[in-house]
C-alpha cells in the first residue's frame, strides 16, 4: 500500500507538471508592451515553484516508499544535519528565492502601476455598471464633460449622466459600448463604477483592475497587436456577473480615426 501511495504521488506530480513543462498550456497570447515583464516573472516563478513542487513531492514519495517497511528491530535514523540544517536551508534557499522574486516582480508591477502614463496617452473613460461597460472619448476638445449621477438614465441612453445642454465640454463627448483603441498608442483608462464593485480584465492585455465605487481609478497600457479581444468583469457584481462583457478592438490609427468619426456621428 505504501509503495502504491508513493508511486501515485509521483504520477500525480509529474502529470500535473507535464502540460506546463511541455508548453501545452500557456497563458493567453500577450498583446501589450508591459506584458512580457509579467510573463517573464510568471515563467521564473513557474520554474522555482515547479522545482519546489516536484522535489518535495518526490522526496515525500521516496521517504514513504523507503521507511514504511521497517522491521521491528530497525533503529530510527536521524536526518543528516538535523533540524538546524533544514531551517538554514529554508532560510537560505527559500528566503533568497522569494526575495529575488519579490524584487524582480516589483519591476513588472511598477511598469503598470507606479510609472505615470505618458503625457500624450490617449484618455478614455470606462464606466462599469450592472452588467455592462460603457466607454467615453473626450471628442475634439480633448476634455471630458462632467458626469452627473442624478442624470444617469439607461432608459434615455445617458449612461454617464451627461448634461449636453449646459455643459460645453460634454457636447462632443463620444459614448460607446465597445473599447476601440489605436495600436501602439498608450491608453490612459479612467475607471469608475456607477453602482457596485466590478473589474476590468483583458487577459491578453495583461491588465486587471477593480472598479471601486466612490473612487476614480486609472490604469495605462499600450496594445501592440491589432485584433478583437474580450473585456470581462472579474468582481462579483450580481446575478448577471458572468455575462458582463465588452469587446476591446485594437485598430490601426486610420481605422481608429474612421471608427471614432463614425461613432461621433451616431451620438
Amino acid at each position: 500500500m505504501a509503495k502504491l501511495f508513493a508511486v501515485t504521488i509521483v504520477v500525480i506530480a509529474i502529470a500535473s507538471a507535464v502540460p506546463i513543462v511541455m508548453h501545452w498550456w500557456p497563458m493567453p497570447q500577450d498583446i501589450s508592451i508591459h506584458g512580457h515583464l509579467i510573463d517573464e516573472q510568471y515563467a521564473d516563478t513557474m520554474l522555482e515553484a515547479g522545482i519546489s513542487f516536484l522535489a518535495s513531492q518526490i522526496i515525500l514519495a521516496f521517504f514513504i516508499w523507503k521507511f514504511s517497511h521497517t522491521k521491528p528491530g530497525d533503529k530510527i535514523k536521524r536526518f543528516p544535519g538535523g533540524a538546524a540544517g533544514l531551517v538554514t536551508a529554508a532560510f537560505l534557499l527559500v528566503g533568497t528565492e522569494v526575495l529575488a522574486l519579490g524584487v524582480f516582480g516589483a519591476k513588472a508591477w511598477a511598469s503598470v502601476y507606479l510609472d505615470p502614463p505618458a503625457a500624450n496617452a490617449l484618455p478614455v473613460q470606462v464606466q462599469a455598471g450592472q452588467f455592462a461597460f460603457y466607454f467615453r472619448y473626450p471628442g475634439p476638445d480633448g476634455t471630458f464633460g462632467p458626469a452627473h449621477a442624478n442624470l444617469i438614465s439607461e432608459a434615455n441612453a445617458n449612461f454617464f449622466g451627461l448634461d449636453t445642454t449646459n455643459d460645453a465640454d460634454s457636447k462632443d463627448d463620444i459614448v460607446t459600448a465597445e473599447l476601440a483603441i489605436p495600436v501602439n498608442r498608450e491608453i490612459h483608462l479612467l475607471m469608475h463604477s456607477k453602482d457596485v464593485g466590478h473589474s476590468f480584465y483583458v487577459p491578453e492585455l495583461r491588465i486587471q483592475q477593480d472598479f471601486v465605487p466612490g473612487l476614480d481609478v486609472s490604469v495605462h497600457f499600450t496594445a501592440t497587436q491589432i485584433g478583437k479581444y474580450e473585456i470581462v468583469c472579474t468582481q462579483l457584481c450580481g446575478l448577471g456577473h458572468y455575462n458582463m462583457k465588452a469587446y476591446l478592438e485594437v485598430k490601426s490609427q486610420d481605422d481608429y480615426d474612421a471608427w471614432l468619426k463614425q461613432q461621433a456621428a451616431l451620438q
Partner: protein
Amino acid sequence: MHDMSHQEVHHGAPTSFIRKHIFSTDHKVIGKQYYALALVAALWGMVLSWIMRLHLGWGSLAIPGLHFLSSTGAPGDVMTPEYYLQLMTMHGTIMVFFVLTTAPFAAFGNFFLPIQTGAEDMPFPHFNMMSFWVTFVGFLVLVASFFVADGPTLGGWTMYAPLSAIGSVGGPGEGWGVVLWAASIGIFCIGQLLGSLNFITTTLDMRCKGMSLMRLPLSAWAWFITSVMGLTAFAVLMPACILLILDHLAGTSFFVPSNLVINDQLLPHSGGSTLLWQHLFWFFGHPEVYIAIIPGMGIVSHVLITNMRRPMLSHRVLIYSMGSLAVLSYMVYGHHMFVSGMNPVSSLAFSFPTLIITIPSTIVVLIWLGSLYGSKLRINSASLFALGFISMFISGGVSGFFLAQPSIDIMLHATYFVVGHFHLVMAVAAMFGIFAGTYFWFPKMTGRMMNETWGKVHFWMSFVGAYGIFMPFHYLGIAGNVRRYQAFTDDYLIPLIPVHRFITVAALFTGLAQVIFVLNLIYSRFKGPAATDNPWQGTSLEWSTATPPPHNNFGDKMPVVYHDPYQYSVEGASADYIMQTSTEPVHSPDEEK
C-alpha cells in the same frame, strides 16, 4: 501552571439527558457536538458543490428535486444564474466558518486540549457550552436565509461592499439574505471568541503537574496558537458584520459611498468606503486561513509522530514556525487586494511579508519530510490522510508563490487559479487533517474502532479525486477562467468547458468517498469493535486515560507528567514508547530541556 482552583471547573457528572447530551458543560460532549455540527455542515456544503459543479458542466441540466430547495431559484429543476451565486456563497460560508473552523479547532480542540494538558475540564465550562450553542444558532440563522423571500445572499463568502450593503436593489438575496448572513457570522464570532478564551486559559492555567509548555503535544500547541488568532481575528470581523447590518437596517453608510445609481435611481447613501469592508474582512480573512490550517498542522504532526514511532526533528522549531505563521498572517492580508484599487505601493508592501511567510511554511514541510527520513512508518487510514495532508499542503503552497506577487496577480487574480490554490492549501489539506484526526482519535472519542479497509478506500478516492478536481483549476486560471461565473459564455472560455466537465466528474467521485466515510463513521460508532485505552501505542495524556475518558477525564487520580510528549523509540527503554505519565527514566537526545 495548575494553580486555578479545581473547584472552579469541577462539576459532577450530570445525570439528566439534557444536561448530559444537549446543554452539557463537559468539554468532551461539546467537542462531539462541534464535530456533529461540522459534519452536517460539511455534507450540506458538499451537496451544494455537487449542484454547482453539475451546473457548470452542463448548464441546462435539470437536477431532479432541486425545485424543492427553491421553486424560484430552480424552476423546473434547472438553476437560475442568481441561484448559482446564492448556493456558491452558501458553500463558501458554510465550509469556511462551520466546517474548517469548527472541526479541526473547536471539535478536536475541545475534546482533546484539556485532556492533553492534563486538565479535568476547561476553566469556564458554561462559556464553553455557550460557545457551541451560540455557534449552532449562527448556523441556524444562516440556514434560515434559504427560506426568506428571495433566498440567501449571492455576494460570495467575502461579501464585498457595496453590493452587500445597498439592500435588495443589488439583486436577489441582497436584502434579508445579507442581513441574515451578517447576523449569522457575527453570532459565530461570539461563539469562537468564547471558545478561544477557554482554549487560551486552559493552555496557560490548567496544565497538570509536570506539564511545562514545551511538554505539550504539537496538537495542543496548534490549538493554543489558533485560539490566540481566533481572539484577535473574530474580534475584527464581528464589528464589521455589525456595521454591515446597520447599513441595511439603520440607514447608515459605512460601506456605501455617494452617487451610486441602480436602475436609474440615485441611492440615498453617502460618505462610506467600499475598501473599508475589504480591509476589515481580510484583516480577519487571512488569519482565518491559518485558523483553518494550523490545527491541521498540529493534528497531522501528532498523528504522524505516533505512526512514525519517533518525535519530529525539532519540537520547538515546529512550534516557532506555527507561531510565526500566525503573526505573519496579519501582515499579509493585503495580498487579497492587489488590484482592488488600493494604493499600488501598499501592494508591494503586502507582497514581501506574503513571500516571507513561505519560509516558516517551508520549514514546517521540511521538518515533516526530515522526520519521515529514517522513521518506522506505519500505514493506516490516519497516517495516510496525514501524509496526504503534506502532499496537498505542498501543492497548494507552491501556487502561493504566484499569487504573492502583485505583478502575476494582475493575470491570475479572481481566476480559478486562486480557487485551486486555496482549496488545496486550506480546504482539502484541512479536511485531510480532520480525517487524520478522526481515524486517529475516533477510538478515544467513542470507545470503538473505525473500519480500516473502508478508511483506506475513503483515502484513495479522496486523494486521487481531490487532485482531479483542484489541479485542473490551476490550468483554468492560467487560461484566464474567471471564478464565480455560472456559465461560460465568453468566446475564450467556451473551449474550457470540457475541463469543467472533467472536474465535475472528479467532484462527484470524491463526494462518493465522503459518503463512504460518513457510513463508516456511523456504522463504527455503533458496531465497531471495542477500542483499547491506547490502540496506537501513543504517549500523550489522552492515551493514559480510559477509553472513552470518564467525566472528569482522568478518574480519581490527576496525571503527573515526567516527559516530553513524544518519547518513541528511546534506546534502552522497555518498549518503543514511553508515556508522558511513565516514571521510567529517559536518556534521549530528543528530550528537550
